[in-house]
């Protein structure tokens, strides 16, 4: 599938990650994509300050962090005044179990990506946030991106989503920009010995390519 070649030089991205090596890896990927404004926070508290002071366009956040974890950070951002509450948030997690992934989704993240992170996988997630933005749903118990990617065949109302997809760039049959087989295994979660994060070489190959995760 062709990737949309984007000029991301004007994009402002905030990395929230307590591990310094992972922060450096993410920064290198972003600068490789051409992003010029990259901000880094070691924890959720620092991230909230940077959201307010640096006006990022996109947040990449680790999930398992001390004090304020990714879920709490996401909920706090969703409670901030507009436009910050609408920030696209990509959760980057080493968790591979379905319940963890669903929990991340339900906290209001925009996309989720399972580690290990690949340059292609992260680029796809970022491109998806930009080219295929989600509307938001506000209910008494939830505020966050609309999870619905499918169009109901009997729906006769107005279309929710525009068609602002770049030329030469197609959505797959699920409505996602990508849905690799490997990722489907990860997103499905662990089923006994099938957890790709734990088994031998074949499974490790699967893990290595599972960075294109989405739910």
């Amino acid at each position: 599938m062709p990737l949309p070649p984007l000029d991301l030089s004007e994009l402002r991205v905030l990395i929230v990650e307590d591990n310094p090596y992972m922060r450096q890896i993410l920064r290198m990927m972003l600068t490789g994509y051409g992003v010029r404004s990259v901000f880094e926070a070691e924890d959720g508290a620092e991230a909230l300050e940077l959201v307010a002071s640096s006006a990022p366009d996109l947040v990449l956040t680790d999930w398992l962090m001390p004090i304020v974890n990714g879920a709490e950070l996401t909920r706090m951002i969703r409670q901030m005044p507009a436009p910050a509450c609408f920030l696209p948030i990509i959760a980057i997690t080493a968790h591979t179990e379905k319940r963890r992934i669903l929990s991340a989704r339900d906290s209001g993240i925009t996309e989720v990506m399972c580690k290990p992170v690949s340059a292609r996988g992260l680029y796809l997630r970022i491109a998806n946030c930009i080219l295929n933005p989600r509307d938001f749903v506000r209910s008494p118990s939830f505020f966050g991106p609309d999870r619905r990617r499918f169009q109901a065949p009997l729906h006769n109302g107005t279309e929710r989503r525009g068609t602002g997809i770049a030329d030469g760039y197609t959505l797959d049959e699920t409505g996602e920009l990508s849905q690799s087989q490997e990722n489907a295994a990860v997103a499905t979660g662990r089923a006994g010995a099938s957890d790709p994060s734990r088994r031998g070489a074949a499974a490790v190959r699967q893990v290595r390519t599972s960075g294109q995760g989405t739910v």
Partner: protein
Amino acid sequence: MAREPIDPDGRNEVVKPPRDLRSKVRVLSGREAAQFDPVKSAEAALERLSGDFENWMEDEVRTLASAWADIQSDGLDEDRSQVLFRAAHDIKGQASTLGYPLVGAVAGNLCHLMEHVDTPTLPLTLVAQHVDAIRAMVQEKARQEDNPTARALVDRLADVTDDFITRQSDAK
């Protein structure tokens, strides 16, 4: 920002975000794309960084070993268990990127064990075997996925872990 009720009583609504990032991003022309591939550029940037990966991996292993040493000397409690889990979780997430996929599999298995067994009943011998395996694989630079010894270790630890979790689950 546009709002659209999605139920009759208006308690739920769809809100269109006020900012559209497509206004800040441009699709590169064919000529520009021929000269600059964002993914290849990022991969090249990572490759330049990869000279440090061995040191980073060793540092992560030291963090894991230190967390384990604290448990050995001071006993297992919830806080120390969390420190060990976090160290293993970091390795699980990064090892493949740093070039040690089988180490990531062992760390993932350790995380799996710690997530499925209550801290007071964690089998410390099995935990120690995971920590030792990670340490040995990094020390021996077992980077290849087809390294037979490392692969056998990964599979054996996964089998023993599954057996332990199953037995404990059956006993409940």
